[in-house]
């Protein structure tokens, strides 16, 4: 859509820095209402970068962590309130058909869920049948959800790089129980920070962006056709 994303990002960042929840929310919801940005643009060029710019150096934790959490909460509120626009934008993909069912989760002791929560909306827009089962999930709980919900895909998101250790075990367990019916996709900043890819953990694909989700949806739909 036709909008200066850099300018929009700067203005939004000011509201976020000021912890002005109402201005931050109304600014974003107006952009969506006026169709000046799409959901993927809002998430990828405004909301996610505004959180990623917060770096907490050692020794500054007390000063900055509460601030980071407050800003994350504001962004989470905006994402929840954006859901009607997600459903609206889903209509554009209706003609492309059904790519499959997907479960999204984060491993045990991984509490960073906002990234995959945004990802859930990308999968929704592209016509996946989405169930977001949350963060901090033990391996056995993820396996149980897959048994019950019988998805075509499982998406696991990892932010804290120590949690990549659990990812290995989760993938092994999913392979043991559900291979080859269930494809495993992975995402999250832990992959960028360690230079890892999906294959390093036995998964099928690394999803880095909305474009990657669109590609996955189209490929899956073709395979099902």
């Amino acid at each position: 859509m036709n909008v200066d994303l850099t300018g929009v990002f700067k203005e939004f960042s000011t509201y976020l820095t000021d912890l002005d929840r109402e201005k931050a929310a109304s600014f974003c919801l107006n952009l969506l209402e006026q169709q000046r940005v799409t959901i993927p643009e809002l998430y990828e060029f405004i909301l996610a970068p505004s959180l990623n710019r917060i770096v907490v150096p050692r020794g500054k934790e007390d000063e900055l962590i509460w601030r980071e959490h407050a800003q994350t909460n504001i962004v989470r509120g905006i994402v929840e309130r954006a859901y009607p626009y997600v459903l609206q934008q889903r209509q554009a993909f209706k003609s492309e058909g059904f790519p499959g069912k997907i479960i999204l989760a984060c491993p045990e002791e991984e509490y960073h869920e906002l990234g995959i929560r945004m990802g859930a909306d990308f999968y929704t827009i592209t016509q996946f049948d989405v169930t977001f089962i949350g963060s901090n999930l033990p391996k056995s709980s993820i396996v149980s959800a897959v048994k019950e919900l019988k998805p075509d895909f499982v998406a696991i998101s990892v932010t804290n790089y120590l949690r990549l250790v659990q990812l290995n075990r989760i993938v092994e367990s999913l392979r043991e129980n559900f291979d080859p019916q269930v494809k495993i996709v992975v995402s999250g900043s832990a992959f960028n920070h360690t230079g890892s890819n999906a294959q390093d953990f036995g998964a099928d694909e690394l999803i880095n962006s909305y474009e990657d989700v669109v590609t996955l949806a189209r490929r899956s739909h073709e395979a099902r056709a």
Partner: protein
Amino acid sequence: MANVISLRNVNKVYGTDIKTQVLFDINLDFEESSFNSIIGQSGSGKSTLLNIIGTLDKPTSGEVFINGTKTTQLSKDELAKVRNESIGFVFQFHYLLPEFTAYENIIMPYRIKNDTIPAEVHERAAELIHLMGLDKVKNNPATKMSGGQQQRTSIARALINNPRIILADEPTGNLDSDTTEKVYDLMRNINEKFRTMFLIITHDPRIAQKTDRILEILDGRINLDLENKAPGK
């Protein structure tokens, strides 16, 4: 950056009649001033690996290089010299000598090899005591300090010979979460100030997730080797 530790095809087998292999073809390099952790379940081979790196144990086959020196061919005395000059050890239990003060414990590794203590070693000890926040208890016997103070004393002791390498086996295993955080901060400060390389065995996710590289050992093999290049960390 140069490697301060290199392992080439290291294997370790215990026993003669009944053989148990605990390490399998380990190949690793650790750069100077890096900050690394080893994680893994009990019995996975972590401590054996650390002992071999620290020349406290010998591999059954393979080579260990410390600062470029192949240690597997050194005599016992030569090994002791490399160990004393290049490596500092920190353990879960501090092993301080109870009849000596914090200060005396800290200079002990130097005193073992030298009859007299020059002014610069006293100065270094004073600097380490200050860095570790031990000024108020430096003249206390080891038994008259808290667990955190004892562990910080043992870290200062490991640093007195200005080693390029610190090997730590569960250094916070015995500490509460606040003290764990303090000990972590101290290790990081030392890593940054003196460019000391750290290799820390830990079960504590609060420590492991803050190191720059995590090695996971599983059944005697390197299962994962992850380097975190994120800013801030």
